[in-house]
């Protein structure tokens, strides 16, 4: 159920929410310069696509309050609490690389 498509959908939804929050409060007489160097005084969500804001919001996508500013691929880095003992993708990834190293494949 929670496959790659689902994760992409959730990520997209969160990025849209964050961009919407930003463009609701943006106004400048100079305007916001989008990726095509076109200036918008009242930018919409699509004007942010390809800009630094979009990539930053995409990278910092977690839904937990304490990992809100953390990076995407290690949302609970260094935090041993409720995820201890749970089978997670991060742990699987670590184990996978360990096996690769042991067999001299990496």
């Amino acid at each position, binding site marked *: 159920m929670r496959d790659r498509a689902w994760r992409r959908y959730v990520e*997209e939804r969160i*990025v*849209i929410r964050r*961009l919407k929050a930003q463009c609701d409060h943006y106004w400048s007489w100079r305007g916001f310069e*989008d*990726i*095509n*160097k*076109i200036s918008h005084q009242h930018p*919409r*969500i*699509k004007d942010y*696509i*390809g800009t630094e804001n979009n990539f930053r919001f995409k990278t910092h996508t977690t839904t937990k309050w304490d990992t809100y500013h953390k990076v995407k691929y290690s949302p609970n880095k260094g935090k041993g609490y409720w995820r201890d003992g749970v089978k997670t993708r991060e742990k699987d990834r670590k184990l996978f690389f360990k096996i690769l190293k042991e067999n001299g494949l990496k």
Partner: protein
Amino acid sequence: MDLNSLIPDNFRSLHNPTWIVKGQFVMFKKYEHIPVCFTEDDIVYIFLDNKIPKQIIKITKHLINLGIEFYFTTPELSNPKGIDDFEDTIIRHYLLSYAQKEFFYGFKKIEFDLIHNMVKWTEKENCFDLVKNNYEVINKKINTKHIDYYNNTEFYDFDKEIREDFQSLYRDIQINKIL
């Protein structure tokens, strides 16, 4: 011309379609629907939009295969309010997009000459005189040098290959005009 025919078959999906026809535009969905192209007098105009460079290159390749006449334009024209000096703006946008690495390497990969297309469009609109001024403005922008005094290094906003290509670009434009 039917806009649906501009969407290639392999871009169509039954569930959650990303390419659709909405009003007078063909659109691609990335967060919101972004206009990709429209038709006017049986000529297709593609918005040279850096938000979706891969899709622009894909549709260009598809139109080359179909053999339809097409030109590029600025995404500002998708706004109903329009623009004042559209000829100047479109030429500037052509040149600026040519310098964007997504389009520079993307069009090179599909062996499409953007500059030749621009010259054809200027001949159609009788505005070739505007090219030189715009070229000088964009060339200055592309060769802007930044100096990091702390590390005593120089850096540029654009790749070396693009900057070198831009040095001889006006000559290419003139050759395209003659041919």
